[in-house]
């Protein structure tokens, strides 16, 4: 969707949005367009109180050129926030996306916050790439293609930075929704390589190079698949040369069958999204590049497909990790922590990071723990944890801190190796996984782990997107780095 800002958006558009504050006070655009009182009468007739996100559509109002006027509940007056503005945009997009309307004028004027209305419109209007459908249903096809919002130059200026961020969130969603036959470690790496055009330096480690680097865990997880694993290193160096970079490490299992410890049930197809951490890491890096952010950041993507085969990793196998520690793999379906362990250790050893933040759709346990409204945050570094919590709250990607504890080492003890990759039974697996990862982080490196298994995919439509991938993490990390 194209968005533009104007001091006076057209009032003869197919759809024009005006606003009413909670309690009933109409904003100026409403008053201008109310003419003989058609809008006021609709409000009076319609149980409309101006609650946030409440919508009331008046078709072909007499005396107006607009095809329809959508009256938007703006919520409590004087308390507009970026997040609320985004939800309002989202509500409008949900209403109009497939309505036949091609252009929307947002006539209510929120000043610079109109930029966030535009963000909400674009995020909520996202659909899975059209190429995935052979014969799109015309009834269900998006029609809304452009939006002009009141707010003028101030909003346009505020939107400039947000535009690239939204692009990056949508880019992330496109990756997550792509099925495993289309998005493999190889094609994922190609997507990453395309960000070279945005000034990102991309390096892809694969084949013998991966083995030589000693990324034993990543190689082992990818071994069962005909699609070879890769480590993608994408660098945005917009800051002063030599400044220690932020490092985002992403789990990128392009499809997770579980391997020999194979998954079962009706949800296995969702495992095409088990690369959500890598997509968010790359998305965040892209968001920084698109705005030429004066920072240094690196996204490290551990890409592999986890498949059962004659050459697959077996339960019981002992694998040597990048940093020399050995892991007994008792469950090949606890593979995310394996590829991350190597990627995190490799990043710490080779990138001299300012901080390492890993993102992963890591455990089912975190969904049992926090449901779908918070991602799990694990960190022993107080300033980093606080900064992440703050960034998450600011952009509506909330985190909840969970305990990191050495006490889990006992559950992770192996009889024959330095550790095993998980414990069986009714165990706090999200906590175990976090502790497992921590053992691959050298002392002194600020590190945080985000378990996004509950939030990377929405089980139902929400204010800023349809059911499906959310792009959780992109805005969070961008905000963390940009402050």
């Amino acid at each position, binding site marked *: 969707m194209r968005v533009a800002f104007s001091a006076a958006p057209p009032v003869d558009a197919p759809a024009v949005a005006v606003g009413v504050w909670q309690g009933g006070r109409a904003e100026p655009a409403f008053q201008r367009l109310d003419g003989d009182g058609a809008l006021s009468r609709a409000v009076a007739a319609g149980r409309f109180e101006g609650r946030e996100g409440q919508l009331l559509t008046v078709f072909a109002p007499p005396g107006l050129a607009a095809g329809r006027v959508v009256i938007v509940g703006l919520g409590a007056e004087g308390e507009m926030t970026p997040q609320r503005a985004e939800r309002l945009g989202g509500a409008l997009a949900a209403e109009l996306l497939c309505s036949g309307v091609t252009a929307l004028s947002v006539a209510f004027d929120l000043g610079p916050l109109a930029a966030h209305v535009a963000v909400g419109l674009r995020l909520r209007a996202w659909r899975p790439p059209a190429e995935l459908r052979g014969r799109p249903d015309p009834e269900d096809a998006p029609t809304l293609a452009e939006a002009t919002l009141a707010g003028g130059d101030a909003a346009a200026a505020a939107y400039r930075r947000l535009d690239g961020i939204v692009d990056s969130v949508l880019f992330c969603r496109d990756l997550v929704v792509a099925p495993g036959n289309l998005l493999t470690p190889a094609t994922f790496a190609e997507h990453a390589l395309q960000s070279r055009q945005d000034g990102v330096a991309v390096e892809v480690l694969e084949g013998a190079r991966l083995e030589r680097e000693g990324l034993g865990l990543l190689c082992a997880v990818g071994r069962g698949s005909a699609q070879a694993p890769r480590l993608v290193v994408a660098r945005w160096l917009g800051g002063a040369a030599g400044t220690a970079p932020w490092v985002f490490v992403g789990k990128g299992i392009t499809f997770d069958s579980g391997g020999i410890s194979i998954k079962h049930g009706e949800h296995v197809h969702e495992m095409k999204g088990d690369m959500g951490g890598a997509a968010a890491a790359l998305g965040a890096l892209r968001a920084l590049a698109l705005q030429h952010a004066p920072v240094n950041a690196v996204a490290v993507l551990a890409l592999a497909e986890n498949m059962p085969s004659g050459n697959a990793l077996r339960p019981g196998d002992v694998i040597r990790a990048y940093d020399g520690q050995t892991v007994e793999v008792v469950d090949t379906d606890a593979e995310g922590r394996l590829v991350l362990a190597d990627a995190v250790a490799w990043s710490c050893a080779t990138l001299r990071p300012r901080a390492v933040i890993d993102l992963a759709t890591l455990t089912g346990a975190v969904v049992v723990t926090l449901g779908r*409204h918070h991602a799990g945050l694990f960190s022993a570094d107080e300033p980093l944890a606080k900064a992440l919590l703050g960034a998450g709250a600011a952009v509506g990607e909330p985190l909840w801190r969970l305990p990191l504890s050495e006490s889990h080492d006992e559950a992770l003890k192996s009889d024959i190796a330095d550790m095993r990759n998980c414990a069986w039974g009714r165990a706090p697996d999200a906590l175990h996984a976090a502790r497992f990862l921590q053992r691959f982080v050298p002392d002194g490196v600020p590190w945080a782990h985000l378990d996004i298994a509950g939030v990377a995919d929405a089980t139902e439509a929400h204010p800023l997107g349809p059911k499906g991938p959310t792009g959780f993490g992109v805005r969070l990390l961008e905000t963390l780095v940009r402050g």
Partner: protein
Amino acid sequence: MKIGFSQLALPEDGAVAVGALEGRVLTATGREFDARTGGALTRAMTASRFEGKKDQTLMLLAPSGVGVARILLIGLGKADGIDAAAAERFGGTAVAQLAGAGDEQAAIVCDAVDGAKIDAAAFAAHAALAARLRAYRFDKYLTKEKKEDKPALKKVRVLTDAADAAARAYAPLEAVVEGVAMTRDLVSEPANVIYPETLANEARKLADLGVEVEVLGEKQMRKLGMGALLGVGQGSERESQLVVMRWNGTGREDSQPIAFVGKGVCFDSGGISIKPSANMEDMKWDMGGAGVVVGLMRALAGRKAKADVVAVVGLVENMPSGTAQRPGDVVTSMSGQTIEVINTDAEGRLVLADALWYTQDRFKPKFMIDLATLTGAIIISLGTEYAGLFSNNDELSERLAAVGKDVGEPVWRMPMGDAYDKLIKSDIADMKNVGGRDGGSITAAQFLQRFVNDLPWAHLDIAGVTWSKKDTATTPKGATAFGVRLLDRLVADHYEEK
């Protein structure tokens, strides 16, 4: 096992436990033993991997030159790390090692350590507390246990330079030990012994300590409209009970009490939504919350806490039968709110709903804290280290977190909010009793919150911490009584008149 404090003097017989600091540094008594034995302690430390690190131990049998039967060296770690918790690990470890060694008498030597965070009296008091806690044993049904398998230790003397001060510091802790032991007994007892009426009878015994105890039966609860609690118990032959305990520690009539509420499902078969057989015997401890609340009252009354406290436990048995509650049933709680019972195995929250409402309605407390072995999800979430803390109040939460850390019963706060509350919407009633697998402990807490009006409230989900599968320094495996010390300390630190 009896425990007492004596002035420090070199023990002449029995078993002795002595501390050693990291770096193989003996404390004063250790040095004296070392001198008397011609350096036997130093040689033993050098010959072994004992370095004096926390929790390391080294046993010397019948050392020559002294009369004692054995000397147990226990690592204390670094001097500046010695706090109450370290003292408890020391005392607990001593008893764990010496209880079954064969001696009837033992001395736990608490030498003063320069640079320690606590003084010698506090160290000795906490060592004694832990010794008692660790010596707990639930063996009444072991009728054929061999004599050599039973602990021989009968008497422990805690030796310190500050014996009188230590004894004074220990006195209130002794009451806490009694409370913990009562809770552990209640939790350990099988469900054919402890059921709603017998648990109520145990609570009645607190009257001896000055606690006012009132027991409501089904008839009275029906009159009050406690349809949620009664629905859970209706499948069982055992009559449901609601026990109200009041401790008026200030002596004032008009003060506003603080309140504790406990889930007491004396056996939870799951009801018609019956549980799988494996490990179902564990469900005898689904009254852990009520057990803690009763033991807490014993501790508070035992040490004559200067606080006004009301405690309410809802006691039921959840059984499948021809009269049992069915999935799909709609019940009306005392609050007037209706509940669709989707799963009869999510019964704890139904019991608590009425118990919480009753407590706030009748007593208008300053705050309410409930304890419950409420969800399996909390075990997946936090394991067996932390209890889950859910609250509408930051101050109460922070206090609970702080005292939890102090007494080694840590709690971890979990999120709440509207997004979770939506998950318990019902199509035909005000709410349903389960919200699905995602965030299962959170939706349970949201359910409870619907029965809490505008007062500070905290819910502790103790399903992961009520029963321990392994020994720890202060808890033999089995019932832990997690919560008694936590809440006793909360009251002591924040809600008692000085």
